[in-house]
Protein backbone atom coordinates (compact mmCIF):
# COMPACT_ATOMS: atom_id res chain seq x y z
CA UNK A 1 0.00 0.00 0.00
CA UNK A 2 1.31 3.39 -0.75
CA UNK A 3 1.73 5.99 1.79
CA UNK A 4 -1.16 8.27 2.37
CA UNK A 5 1.00 10.88 3.93
CA UNK A 6 3.78 12.97 2.55
CA UNK A 7 7.29 11.92 3.20
CA UNK A 8 9.26 13.71 5.86
CA UNK A 9 13.00 13.99 5.70
CA UNK A 10 14.94 12.76 8.65
CA UNK A 11 18.53 13.22 9.77
CA UNK A 12 20.87 10.36 10.38
CA UNK A 13 20.01 10.34 14.07
CA UNK A 14 16.34 10.21 13.36
CA UNK A 15 15.49 13.87 13.97
CA UNK A 16 13.19 15.51 11.43
CA UNK A 17 14.73 18.01 9.12
CA UNK A 18 12.73 21.16 9.60
CA UNK A 19 11.81 23.63 6.95
CA UNK A 20 13.01 27.20 7.03
CA UNK A 21 11.25 29.04 9.89
CA UNK A 22 9.63 25.84 11.06
CA UNK A 23 9.58 25.54 14.82
CA UNK A 24 8.56 22.56 16.89
CA UNK A 25 5.68 23.21 19.23
CA UNK A 26 4.63 20.02 20.90
CA UNK A 27 4.98 16.31 20.75
CA UNK A 28 3.13 13.18 21.79
CA UNK A 29 4.40 9.69 21.95
CA UNK A 30 2.83 6.39 20.97
CA UNK A 31 0.46 7.88 18.46
CA UNK A 32 -1.35 6.03 15.73
CA UNK A 33 -2.32 7.97 12.67
CA UNK A 34 -5.34 6.46 10.98
CA UNK A 35 -6.62 7.88 7.76
CA UNK A 36 -10.29 7.28 7.31
CA UNK A 37 -9.81 5.36 4.21
CA UNK A 38 -7.29 2.92 5.61
CA UNK A 39 -8.34 0.15 3.35
CA UNK A 40 -6.27 1.71 0.65
CA UNK A 41 -3.66 3.37 2.76
CA UNK A 42 -1.56 2.06 5.61
CA UNK A 43 -2.05 3.40 9.02
CA UNK A 44 0.90 4.52 11.01
CA UNK A 45 1.22 2.86 14.30
CA UNK A 46 2.74 3.98 17.55
CA UNK A 47 5.08 6.68 16.56
CA UNK A 48 6.12 10.07 17.76
CA UNK A 49 3.78 12.82 16.63
CA UNK A 50 5.47 16.19 16.43
CA UNK A 51 3.52 19.38 15.95
CA UNK A 52 5.42 22.19 14.30
CA UNK A 53 4.40 25.58 13.05
CA UNK A 54 4.15 24.15 9.56
CA UNK A 55 3.42 20.44 9.75
CA UNK A 56 2.41 17.47 11.74
CA UNK A 57 5.35 15.09 11.59
CA UNK A 58 5.09 11.45 12.48
CA UNK A 59 8.25 9.58 13.28
CA UNK A 60 8.32 5.83 13.60
CA UNK A 61 9.43 4.52 16.93
CA UNK A 62 12.88 3.06 16.90
CA UNK A 63 11.62 -0.32 17.90
CA UNK A 64 9.20 -0.59 14.98
CA UNK A 65 9.30 -3.99 13.42
CA UNK A 66 8.19 -2.83 9.99
CA UNK A 67 10.41 -0.20 8.53
CA UNK A 68 8.15 2.73 8.03
CA UNK A 69 9.56 6.04 7.06
CA UNK A 70 8.76 9.35 8.63
CA UNK A 71 5.65 11.06 7.41
CA UNK A 72 4.27 14.51 7.55
CA UNK A 73 1.05 16.36 7.00
CA UNK A 74 1.37 20.00 6.04
CA UNK A 75 -0.88 22.13 8.23
CA UNK A 76 -1.80 23.97 5.05
CA UNK A 77 -3.57 20.83 3.90
CA UNK A 78 -5.74 20.66 6.99
CA UNK A 79 -9.16 22.05 6.38
CA UNK A 80 -10.72 21.43 9.75
CA UNK A 81 -9.89 20.28 13.23
CA UNK A 82 -12.62 18.64 15.17
CA UNK A 83 -13.08 19.66 18.77
CA UNK A 84 -12.75 16.81 21.19
CA UNK A 85 -16.04 15.27 22.23
CA UNK A 86 -16.17 14.26 25.79
CA UNK A 87 -18.51 11.30 25.87
CA UNK A 88 -18.81 8.26 28.02
CA UNK A 89 -16.91 6.33 25.41
CA UNK A 90 -13.98 8.72 25.48
CA UNK A 91 -13.43 8.00 29.16
CA UNK A 92 -12.47 4.44 28.41
CA UNK A 93 -10.74 4.95 25.10
CA UNK A 94 -7.45 6.56 24.40
CA UNK A 95 -7.88 10.18 23.51
CA UNK A 96 -8.25 10.99 19.89
CA UNK A 97 -7.65 14.02 17.78
CA UNK A 98 -9.53 14.14 14.53
CA UNK A 99 -8.96 16.49 11.72
CA UNK A 100 -9.88 16.82 8.12
CA UNK A 101 -7.28 16.80 5.40
CA UNK A 102 -7.57 17.84 1.80
CA UNK A 103 -6.54 15.16 -0.62
CA UNK A 104 -5.27 15.65 -4.09
CA UNK A 105 -6.38 13.74 -7.11
CA UNK A 106 -4.22 10.72 -6.32
CA UNK A 107 -5.97 10.26 -3.05
CA UNK A 108 -3.00 11.20 -0.98
CA UNK A 109 -2.58 14.14 1.29
CA UNK A 110 -2.50 17.37 -0.56
CA UNK A 111 0.96 18.80 -0.39
CA UNK A 112 1.00 22.48 -1.32
CA UNK A 113 4.77 22.49 -1.44
CA UNK A 114 5.18 19.80 -3.98
CA UNK A 115 4.76 20.19 -7.73
CA UNK A 116 1.91 17.78 -7.92
CA UNK A 117 0.06 19.83 -5.43
CA UNK A 118 0.25 23.11 -7.24
CA UNK A 119 -0.45 21.70 -10.63
CA UNK A 120 -3.35 19.54 -9.71
CA UNK A 121 -4.92 22.22 -7.62
CA UNK A 122 -6.29 21.83 -4.16
CA UNK A 123 -8.37 18.77 -3.87
CA UNK A 124 -12.07 19.05 -3.54
CA UNK A 125 -12.16 15.92 -1.49
CA UNK A 126 -11.17 15.69 2.11
CA UNK A 127 -10.46 12.77 4.35
CA UNK A 128 -10.67 12.58 8.08
CA UNK A 129 -7.59 11.44 9.91
CA UNK A 130 -7.63 10.31 13.47
CA UNK A 131 -4.66 10.47 15.72
CA UNK A 132 -5.01 8.00 18.55
CA UNK A 133 -2.88 8.90 21.47
CA UNK A 134 -1.89 5.85 23.36
CA UNK A 135 0.95 7.44 25.23
CA UNK A 136 0.83 9.50 28.36
CA UNK A 137 1.26 12.92 26.71
CA UNK A 138 -0.76 16.04 27.37
CA UNK A 139 -3.48 15.57 24.78
CA UNK A 140 -5.51 18.67 25.55
CA UNK A 141 -2.46 20.87 25.52
CA UNK A 142 -1.44 19.39 22.23
CA UNK A 143 -4.85 20.10 20.82
CA UNK A 144 -4.70 23.73 21.91
CA UNK A 145 -1.28 24.13 20.34
CA UNK A 146 -2.54 22.38 17.25
CA UNK A 147 -5.32 24.92 16.88
CA UNK A 148 -2.91 27.78 17.48
CA UNK A 149 -0.36 26.62 14.97
CA UNK A 150 -2.99 25.87 12.38
CA UNK A 151 -4.58 29.29 12.76
CA UNK A 152 -1.24 31.07 12.86
CA UNK A 153 -0.54 29.93 9.32
CA UNK A 154 3.16 30.37 9.81
CA UNK A 155 3.86 28.87 6.39
CA UNK A 156 2.45 32.01 4.84
CA UNK A 157 4.65 34.40 6.82
CA UNK A 158 7.18 36.57 4.98
CA UNK A 159 10.89 35.93 5.10
CA UNK A 160 12.05 39.37 6.23
CA UNK A 161 12.56 38.56 9.90
CA UNK A 162 14.58 35.56 8.93
CA UNK A 163 17.12 37.55 6.96
CA UNK A 164 17.66 39.80 9.98
CA UNK A 165 18.22 36.97 12.38
CA UNK A 166 20.54 35.15 10.03
CA UNK A 167 23.04 37.96 10.31
CA UNK A 168 23.19 37.70 14.09
CA UNK A 169 25.89 35.67 15.80
CA UNK A 170 25.58 32.00 15.63
CA UNK A 171 25.01 30.47 18.99
CA UNK A 172 21.76 31.71 20.38
CA UNK A 173 19.13 29.44 18.93
CA UNK A 174 19.57 26.45 21.13
CA UNK A 175 17.42 27.65 24.01
CA UNK A 176 14.27 26.14 25.37
CA UNK A 177 11.72 27.75 23.09
CA UNK A 178 11.39 24.32 21.60
CA UNK A 179 12.56 25.65 18.25
CA UNK A 180 14.44 23.53 15.82
CA UNK A 181 18.14 23.90 16.10
CA UNK A 182 19.14 23.07 12.57
CA UNK A 183 17.97 24.68 9.40
CA UNK A 184 17.70 22.80 6.19
CA UNK A 185 21.31 23.37 5.24
CA UNK A 186 22.51 22.22 8.65
CA UNK A 187 23.49 25.65 10.05
CA UNK A 188 22.21 26.97 13.36
CA UNK A 189 19.57 29.64 12.92
CA UNK A 190 18.17 32.58 14.82
CA UNK A 191 14.47 32.25 14.57
CA UNK A 192 13.90 32.23 18.31
CA UNK A 193 15.72 35.50 18.91
CA UNK A 194 14.03 37.19 15.99
CA UNK A 195 10.71 36.10 17.37
CA UNK A 196 11.55 37.57 20.74
CA UNK A 197 12.60 40.84 19.15
CA UNK A 198 9.40 41.00 17.18
CA UNK A 199 7.38 40.37 20.31
CA UNK A 200 9.22 43.17 22.11
CA UNK A 201 8.43 45.56 19.32
CA UNK A 202 4.74 44.69 19.40
CA UNK A 203 4.61 45.07 23.17
CA UNK A 204 6.23 48.47 22.96
CA UNK A 205 3.77 49.64 20.38
CA UNK A 206 0.78 48.52 22.40
CA UNK A 207 2.14 50.16 25.57
CA UNK A 208 2.62 53.36 23.67
CA UNK A 209 -0.94 53.31 22.49
CA UNK A 210 -2.39 52.60 25.90
CA UNK A 211 -0.27 55.43 27.38
CA UNK A 212 -1.71 57.81 24.87
CA UNK A 213 -5.20 56.73 25.79
CA UNK A 214 -4.45 57.17 29.46
CA UNK A 215 -3.25 60.70 28.93
CA UNK A 216 -6.41 61.55 27.15
CA UNK A 217 -8.20 60.53 30.31
CA UNK A 218 -5.81 62.55 32.41
CA UNK A 219 -6.58 65.68 30.48
CA UNK A 220 -10.24 65.15 31.16
CA UNK A 221 -9.44 64.60 34.84
CA UNK A 222 -7.42 67.80 35.02
CA UNK A 223 -10.26 69.92 33.76
CA UNK A 224 -12.57 68.34 36.33
CA UNK A 225 -9.99 68.84 39.03
CA UNK A 226 -9.97 72.54 38.34
CA UNK A 227 -13.68 72.65 39.13
CA UNK A 228 -13.09 70.66 42.32
CA UNK A 229 -10.41 73.05 43.47
CA UNK A 230 -12.68 76.02 42.90
CA UNK A 231 -15.38 74.34 44.91
CA UNK A 232 -12.99 73.59 47.74
CA UNK A 233 -11.84 77.20 47.74
CA UNK A 234 -15.43 78.40 48.02
CA UNK A 235 -15.99 76.16 51.01
CA UNK A 236 -12.81 77.38 52.59
CA UNK A 237 -13.83 80.99 52.17
CA UNK A 238 -17.15 80.20 53.71
CA UNK A 239 -15.48 78.66 56.73
CA UNK A 240 -13.23 81.64 57.13
CA UNK A 241 -16.05 84.11 56.91
CA UNK A 242 -18.04 81.97 59.34
CA UNK A 243 -15.49 82.28 62.14
CA UNK A 244 -14.90 85.98 61.72
CA UNK A 245 -18.50 86.69 62.66
CA UNK A 246 -18.99 86.77 66.41
CA UNK A 247 -19.60 83.48 68.16
CA UNK A 248 -22.62 84.65 70.06
CA UNK A 249 -24.79 83.96 67.06
CA UNK A 250 -23.61 80.42 66.46
CA UNK A 251 -25.08 77.49 68.23
CA UNK A 252 -23.61 74.10 68.90
CA UNK A 253 -24.99 72.58 65.75
CA UNK A 254 -23.28 75.11 63.59
CA UNK A 255 -19.96 74.57 65.33
CA UNK A 256 -20.32 70.82 64.95
CA UNK A 257 -20.97 70.99 61.23
CA UNK A 258 -18.12 73.42 60.82
CA UNK A 259 -15.79 71.00 62.53
CA UNK A 260 -17.06 68.26 60.27
CA UNK A 261 -16.42 70.41 57.27
CA UNK A 262 -12.90 71.05 58.47
CA UNK A 263 -12.29 67.38 58.90
CA UNK A 264 -13.56 66.65 55.42
CA UNK A 265 -11.35 69.30 53.97
CA UNK A 266 -8.40 67.93 55.89
CA UNK A 267 -9.01 64.43 54.64
CA UNK A 268 -8.92 65.76 51.08
CA UNK A 269 -5.63 67.41 51.95
CA UNK A 270 -6.69 71.04 52.26
CA UNK A 271 -5.45 72.52 55.47
CA UNK A 272 -8.11 74.20 57.46
CA UNK A 273 -7.46 77.94 57.63
CA UNK A 274 -9.08 78.13 61.02
CA UNK A 275 -6.38 76.01 62.62
CA UNK A 276 -4.02 78.82 63.33
CA UNK A 277 -6.52 80.96 65.17
CA UNK A 278 -8.33 78.34 67.16
CA UNK A 279 -6.82 75.49 69.10
CA UNK A 280 -6.55 73.73 65.81
CA UNK A 281 -8.46 71.05 64.05
CA UNK A 282 -9.37 68.08 66.14
CA UNK A 283 -7.18 65.88 64.02
CA UNK A 284 -4.08 67.85 64.80
CA UNK A 285 -4.92 68.03 68.45
CA UNK A 286 -5.21 64.29 68.71
CA UNK A 287 -2.07 63.83 66.70
CA UNK A 288 -0.26 66.26 68.93
CA UNK A 289 -1.11 64.38 72.09
CA UNK A 290 -0.32 61.05 70.51
CA UNK A 291 3.03 62.34 69.39
CA UNK A 292 3.86 63.69 72.83
CA UNK A 293 3.13 60.30 74.37
CA UNK A 294 5.05 58.42 71.76
CA UNK A 295 8.14 60.56 71.79
CA UNK A 296 8.80 60.05 75.49
CA UNK A 297 10.69 56.81 75.13
CA UNK A 298 12.88 57.73 72.17
CA UNK A 299 13.75 60.94 74.01
CA UNK A 300 14.98 59.04 77.03
CA UNK A 301 17.03 56.76 74.88
CA UNK A 302 18.54 59.69 73.02
CA UNK A 303 19.56 61.47 76.19
CA UNK A 304 16.83 64.12 76.29
CA UNK A 305 17.12 65.57 72.83
CA UNK A 306 16.15 64.14 69.48
CA UNK A 307 16.32 65.55 65.98
CA UNK A 308 12.86 66.37 64.59
CA UNK A 309 13.55 64.39 61.45
CA UNK A 310 14.53 61.32 63.45
CA UNK A 311 11.38 61.65 65.53
CA UNK A 312 9.32 61.93 62.37
CA UNK A 313 10.77 58.72 60.96
CA UNK A 314 10.28 56.82 64.20
CA UNK A 315 6.73 58.03 64.58
CA UNK A 316 5.68 57.10 61.07
CA UNK A 317 7.31 53.74 61.33
CA UNK A 318 5.42 53.06 64.54
CA UNK A 319 2.16 54.12 62.97
CA UNK A 320 2.62 51.69 60.13
CA UNK A 321 -0.33 52.90 58.10
CA UNK A 322 -1.92 56.34 57.91
CA UNK A 323 1.45 58.01 57.77
CA UNK A 324 1.60 61.70 58.54
CA UNK A 325 3.17 64.33 56.38
CA UNK A 326 6.05 66.50 57.56
CA UNK A 327 3.63 69.38 57.68
CA UNK A 328 1.32 67.49 60.03
CA UNK A 329 4.32 66.75 62.22
CA UNK A 330 5.26 70.38 62.45
CA UNK A 331 1.69 71.37 63.24
CA UNK A 332 1.44 68.75 65.93
CA UNK A 333 4.66 69.90 67.55
CA UNK A 334 3.67 73.56 67.44
CA UNK A 335 0.47 72.74 69.26
CA UNK A 336 2.43 71.53 72.27
CA UNK A 337 2.77 75.10 73.42
CA UNK A 338 -0.95 75.18 74.03
CA UNK A 339 -1.12 71.97 75.96
CA UNK A 340 0.52 70.87 79.10
CA UNK A 341 2.92 68.29 77.76
CA UNK A 342 6.42 67.63 79.03
CA UNK A 343 8.03 68.05 75.63
CA UNK A 344 8.80 71.02 73.43
CA UNK A 345 10.00 71.89 69.96
CA UNK A 346 13.16 73.89 69.77
CA UNK A 347 14.91 75.53 66.86
CA UNK A 348 18.63 76.16 66.98
CA UNK A 349 20.33 79.09 65.31
CA UNK A 350 21.67 76.79 62.67
CA UNK A 351 18.11 75.92 61.69
CA UNK A 352 18.17 72.43 63.13
CA UNK A 353 14.93 71.57 64.92
CA UNK A 354 14.80 69.21 67.86
CA UNK A 355 12.33 67.83 70.32
CA UNK A 356 13.49 68.07 73.89
CA UNK A 357 12.16 67.57 77.36
CA UNK A 358 10.82 70.72 78.96
CA UNK A 359 12.90 69.83 81.95
CA UNK A 360 15.99 69.96 79.80
CA UNK A 361 18.18 72.71 81.04
CA UNK A 362 20.73 74.40 78.84
CA UNK A 363 22.65 75.55 81.85
CA UNK A 364 23.15 72.01 83.01
CA UNK A 365 24.43 71.00 79.60
CA UNK A 366 26.83 73.93 79.55
CA UNK A 367 28.12 73.02 82.96
CA UNK A 368 28.86 69.53 81.73
CA UNK A 369 30.52 70.86 78.58
CA UNK A 370 32.63 73.23 80.64
CA UNK A 371 33.86 70.49 82.90
CA UNK A 372 34.64 68.36 79.86
CA UNK A 373 36.57 71.07 78.06
CA UNK A 374 38.71 72.03 81.05
CA UNK A 375 40.14 68.58 81.50
CA UNK A 376 43.89 68.49 80.84
CA UNK A 377 43.68 66.66 77.50
CA UNK A 378 40.85 68.88 76.34
CA UNK A 379 42.84 71.97 77.26
CA UNK A 380 45.57 70.82 74.94
CA UNK A 381 43.63 69.42 72.02
CA UNK A 382 40.09 70.64 72.49
CA UNK A 383 37.00 68.49 72.03
CA UNK A 384 35.15 67.33 68.95
CA UNK A 385 31.38 66.91 68.66
CA UNK A 386 31.92 63.17 68.97
CA UNK A 387 33.74 63.57 72.30
CA UNK A 388 30.92 65.73 73.57
CA UNK A 389 28.36 63.24 72.32
CA UNK A 390 29.96 60.47 74.31
CA UNK A 391 30.10 62.49 77.50
CA UNK A 392 26.62 63.93 77.22
CA UNK A 393 25.10 60.69 76.03
CA UNK A 394 23.40 62.21 73.01
CA UNK A 395 23.76 61.96 69.24
CA UNK A 396 26.80 63.73 67.71
CA UNK A 397 24.61 66.03 65.64
CA UNK A 398 22.81 67.12 68.82
CA UNK A 399 26.09 67.50 70.62
CA UNK A 400 27.35 69.77 67.86
CA UNK A 401 24.29 71.98 68.29
CA UNK A 402 25.04 72.29 71.99
CA UNK A 403 28.67 73.12 71.32
CA UNK A 404 27.68 75.78 68.82
CA UNK A 405 25.26 77.27 71.30
CA UNK A 406 27.96 77.27 73.95
CA UNK A 407 30.25 79.04 71.49
CA UNK A 408 27.64 81.72 70.89
CA UNK A 409 27.40 82.20 74.62
CA UNK A 410 31.13 82.77 74.75
CA UNK A 411 31.94 79.61 76.64
CA UNK A 412 33.89 77.99 73.81
CA UNK A 413 36.05 78.89 70.83
CA UNK A 414 36.34 76.98 67.59
CA UNK A 415 39.49 75.65 66.00
CA UNK A 416 39.31 74.66 62.35
CA UNK A 417 42.25 72.78 60.95
CA UNK A 418 43.07 69.79 58.77
CA UNK A 419 42.44 67.74 61.93
CA UNK A 420 38.84 68.81 61.87
CA UNK A 421 36.41 71.00 63.75
CA UNK A 422 37.18 71.23 67.44
CA UNK A 423 36.21 73.41 70.38
CA UNK A 424 38.35 74.84 73.18
CA UNK A 425 37.52 76.69 76.32
CA UNK A 426 37.36 80.38 75.51
CA UNK A 427 40.50 82.09 76.85
CA UNK A 428 40.10 85.36 75.01
CA UNK A 429 38.22 87.18 77.76
CA UNK A 430 41.14 86.49 80.08
CA UNK A 431 43.72 88.17 77.89
CA UNK A 432 44.36 91.87 78.19
CA UNK A 433 45.46 93.36 74.88
CA UNK A 434 47.24 96.17 76.63
CA UNK A 435 49.19 93.72 78.65
CA UNK A 436 49.48 90.70 76.46
CA UNK A 437 52.37 89.04 78.14
CA UNK A 438 50.95 89.19 81.58
CA UNK A 439 49.18 86.15 82.95
CA UNK A 440 47.35 86.04 86.20
CA UNK A 441 48.51 83.17 88.33
CA UNK A 442 44.96 82.04 88.90
CA UNK A 443 42.11 81.46 86.54
CA UNK A 444 41.64 79.44 83.44
CA UNK A 445 44.50 81.02 81.53
CA UNK A 446 47.10 79.94 84.01
CA UNK A 447 45.56 76.46 84.14
CA UNK A 448 45.87 76.31 80.41
CA UNK A 449 49.46 77.46 80.39
CA UNK A 450 50.35 74.91 83.01
CA UNK A 451 48.72 72.17 80.97
CA UNK A 452 50.52 73.26 77.81
CA UNK A 453 53.90 73.59 79.41
CA UNK A 454 53.86 70.20 81.09
CA UNK A 455 53.87 68.55 77.70
CA UNK A 456 56.80 70.78 76.70
Amino acid at each position, binding site marked *: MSNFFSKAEVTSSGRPVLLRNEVECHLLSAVDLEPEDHRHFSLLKSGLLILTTHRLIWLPSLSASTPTSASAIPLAAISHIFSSKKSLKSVFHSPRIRFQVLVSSDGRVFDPGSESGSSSGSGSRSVVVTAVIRGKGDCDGFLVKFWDSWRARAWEATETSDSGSASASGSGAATGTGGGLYSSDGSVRMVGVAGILRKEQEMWESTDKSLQDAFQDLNALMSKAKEMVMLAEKMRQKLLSGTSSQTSGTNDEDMGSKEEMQDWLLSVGIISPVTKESAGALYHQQLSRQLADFVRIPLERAGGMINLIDAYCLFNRARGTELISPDDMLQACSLWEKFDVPVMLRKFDSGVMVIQNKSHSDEEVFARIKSLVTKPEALLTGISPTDAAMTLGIAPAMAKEHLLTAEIKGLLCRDISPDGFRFYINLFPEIDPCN*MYFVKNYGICSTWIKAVSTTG
Partner: protein
Amino acid sequence: MQKLGDFKLPHFFNYPPYFTLQPVRETREKQIQLWKELILDYCRTQKIFIVRLEEEFPLFSNSVIERTLSHEAREAFLSALVAEGRAEWLDKGRRNCLILWHRIQEWADIIVNFVKDNGFEDSVMTVEEIRSGIESRGTELHGIDRTILMRALKLLEQKGKLAIFKGTSTDDEGVKFSV
Protein backbone atom coordinates in the same frame (compact mmCIF):
# COMPACT_ATOMS: atom_id res chain seq x y z
CA MET B 1 58.53 81.46 76.14
CA GLN B 2 58.38 80.91 72.44
CA LYS B 3 60.34 83.13 70.13
CA LEU B 4 60.20 84.08 66.52
CA GLY B 5 63.73 85.06 65.82
CA ASP B 6 64.45 87.35 68.72
CA PHE B 7 60.84 88.34 69.14
CA LYS B 8 59.15 87.11 72.25
CA LEU B 9 55.77 85.58 71.53
CA PRO B 10 52.86 85.83 73.94
CA HIS B 11 51.54 82.64 75.48
CA PHE B 12 48.30 82.66 73.56
CA PHE B 13 50.25 82.27 70.35
CA ASN B 14 50.06 78.53 71.07
CA TYR B 15 46.30 78.59 71.59
CA PRO B 16 44.87 76.94 68.47
CA PRO B 17 41.63 78.94 68.30
CA TYR B 18 43.82 82.03 67.98
CA PHE B 19 44.49 80.94 64.41
CA THR B 20 40.84 80.40 63.44
CA LEU B 21 38.76 83.44 62.63
CA GLN B 22 36.08 83.36 65.32
CA PRO B 23 32.49 83.78 64.22
CA VAL B 24 31.03 85.00 67.49
CA ARG B 25 31.18 88.78 67.51
CA GLU B 26 32.53 89.41 70.99
CA THR B 27 35.13 86.70 70.71
CA ARG B 28 36.16 87.92 67.30
CA GLU B 29 36.59 91.49 68.45
CA LYS B 30 38.96 90.36 71.16
CA GLN B 31 40.82 88.17 68.75
CA ILE B 32 41.24 91.02 66.28
CA GLN B 33 42.51 93.29 68.99
CA LEU B 34 45.14 90.79 70.02
CA TRP B 35 46.28 90.22 66.47
CA LYS B 36 46.51 93.95 65.74
CA GLU B 37 48.78 94.51 68.70
CA LEU B 38 50.88 91.51 67.86
CA ILE B 39 51.35 92.53 64.23
CA LEU B 40 52.32 96.07 65.16
CA ASP B 41 54.71 94.88 67.84
CA TYR B 42 56.36 92.39 65.58
CA CYS B 43 56.72 94.83 62.68
CA ARG B 44 58.10 97.49 64.93
CA THR B 45 60.79 95.30 66.44
CA GLN B 46 61.68 93.60 63.19
CA LYS B 47 61.46 96.82 61.17
CA ILE B 48 59.00 95.35 58.77
CA PHE B 49 57.10 97.93 56.79
CA ILE B 50 55.20 95.83 54.28
CA VAL B 51 53.23 92.66 54.81
CA ARG B 52 52.37 90.66 51.70
CA LEU B 53 49.38 88.39 52.27
CA GLU B 54 50.25 85.80 49.74
CA GLU B 55 53.76 85.33 50.95
CA GLU B 56 54.95 83.54 54.03
CA PHE B 57 54.86 85.80 57.02
CA PRO B 58 56.41 84.16 60.07
CA LEU B 59 53.88 85.63 62.44
CA PHE B 60 50.96 84.09 60.59
CA SER B 61 52.03 80.48 61.19
CA ASN B 62 52.81 78.44 64.23
CA SER B 63 54.62 75.23 63.44
CA VAL B 64 54.47 74.03 67.05
CA ILE B 65 50.70 73.68 67.02
CA GLU B 66 50.58 73.31 63.23
CA ARG B 67 48.23 76.14 62.52
CA THR B 68 48.27 78.88 59.88
CA LEU B 69 46.03 81.87 59.43
CA SER B 70 43.74 81.59 56.45
CA HIS B 71 43.77 84.29 53.80
CA GLU B 72 40.41 85.47 55.05
CA ALA B 73 41.74 85.82 58.57
CA ARG B 74 44.84 87.72 57.44
CA GLU B 75 42.74 90.12 55.47
CA ALA B 76 40.40 90.61 58.40
CA PHE B 77 43.18 91.50 60.83
CA LEU B 78 45.02 93.77 58.44
CA SER B 79 41.81 95.52 57.45
CA ALA B 80 41.23 96.21 61.10
CA LEU B 81 44.65 97.88 61.23
CA VAL B 82 43.82 99.89 58.14
CA ALA B 83 40.54 100.99 59.68
CA GLU B 84 42.44 102.20 62.68
CA GLY B 85 44.85 104.13 60.52
CA ARG B 86 47.79 101.92 61.48
CA ALA B 87 48.15 100.42 58.02
CA GLU B 88 47.33 101.06 54.38
CA TRP B 89 46.53 98.83 51.47
CA LEU B 90 49.04 99.30 48.70
CA ASP B 91 46.86 97.74 46.02
CA LYS B 92 43.20 97.33 45.26
CA GLY B 93 43.50 93.55 45.45
CA ARG B 94 44.53 93.85 49.09
CA ARG B 95 47.54 91.72 48.67
CA ASN B 96 50.10 94.11 50.06
CA CYS B 97 49.78 96.14 53.21
CA LEU B 98 51.91 99.01 54.43
CA ILE B 99 52.25 98.82 58.19
CA LEU B 100 52.39 102.11 60.03
CA TRP B 101 53.60 101.08 63.43
CA HIS B 102 54.39 104.75 63.66
CA ARG B 103 51.74 106.90 62.16
CA ILE B 104 52.92 109.32 59.48
CA GLN B 105 52.64 112.16 61.93
CA GLU B 106 54.83 110.25 64.36
CA TRP B 107 57.41 109.71 61.67
CA ALA B 108 57.32 113.40 60.92
CA ASP B 109 58.02 114.15 64.57
CA ILE B 110 60.88 111.67 64.57
CA ILE B 111 62.39 113.41 61.56
CA VAL B 112 62.11 116.78 63.24
CA ASN B 113 63.81 115.43 66.35
CA PHE B 114 66.48 113.84 64.21
CA VAL B 115 67.13 117.13 62.50
CA LYS B 116 67.31 119.00 65.80
CA ASP B 117 69.50 116.39 67.46
CA ASN B 118 72.01 116.57 64.68
CA GLY B 119 71.91 120.27 64.05
CA PHE B 120 70.61 119.97 60.52
CA GLU B 121 68.10 122.81 60.95
CA ASP B 122 69.19 124.69 57.89
CA SER B 123 71.02 122.05 55.96
CA VAL B 124 70.35 120.05 52.88
CA MET B 125 70.29 116.29 52.75
CA THR B 126 69.32 113.73 50.23
CA VAL B 127 66.47 111.46 51.05
CA GLU B 128 68.76 108.50 50.87
CA GLU B 129 71.05 110.01 53.42
CA ILE B 130 68.15 110.37 55.82
CA ARG B 131 67.36 106.71 55.33
CA SER B 132 70.77 105.16 55.35
CA GLY B 133 73.30 107.79 56.21
CA ILE B 134 75.73 107.54 59.12
CA GLU B 135 73.73 109.93 61.22
CA SER B 136 70.59 107.87 61.00
CA ARG B 137 72.26 104.75 62.27
CA GLY B 138 70.90 103.75 65.59
CA THR B 139 67.78 105.81 65.09
CA GLU B 140 64.41 104.59 64.03
CA LEU B 141 64.88 106.37 60.75
CA HIS B 142 67.50 103.95 59.66
CA GLY B 143 66.13 101.64 57.00
CA ILE B 144 62.74 103.31 56.96
CA ASP B 145 60.54 102.39 54.04
CA ARG B 146 60.96 104.95 51.30
CA THR B 147 57.24 105.40 50.73
CA ILE B 148 56.66 106.19 54.36
CA LEU B 149 59.59 108.56 54.49
CA MET B 150 58.33 110.49 51.48
CA ARG B 151 54.89 110.74 53.00
CA ALA B 152 56.31 112.08 56.24
CA LEU B 153 58.51 114.53 54.38
CA LYS B 154 55.59 115.71 52.31
CA LEU B 155 53.61 116.24 55.47
CA LEU B 156 56.43 118.34 56.88
CA GLU B 157 56.69 120.22 53.61
CA GLN B 158 53.05 121.16 53.90
CA LYS B 159 53.81 122.50 57.33
CA GLY B 160 56.62 124.52 55.93
CA LYS B 161 59.33 122.70 57.82
CA LEU B 162 61.24 121.71 54.74
CA ALA B 163 61.31 121.80 50.99
CA ILE B 164 61.68 118.79 48.76
CA PHE B 165 63.49 119.18 45.46
CA LYS B 166 64.23 116.77 42.74
CA GLY B 167 67.69 116.01 41.61
CA THR B 168 68.83 114.50 38.35
CA SER B 169 67.55 111.11 39.47
CA THR B 170 65.49 109.69 42.29
CA ASP B 171 68.60 109.01 44.27
CA ASP B 172 69.28 112.68 44.20
CA GLU B 173 66.00 113.74 45.70
CA GLY B 174 66.88 116.17 48.38
CA VAL B 175 65.46 118.04 51.30
CA LYS B 176 66.22 121.47 52.61
CA PHE B 177 65.24 121.79 56.21
CA SER B 178 63.95 124.95 57.74
CA VAL B 179 62.89 123.55 61.04
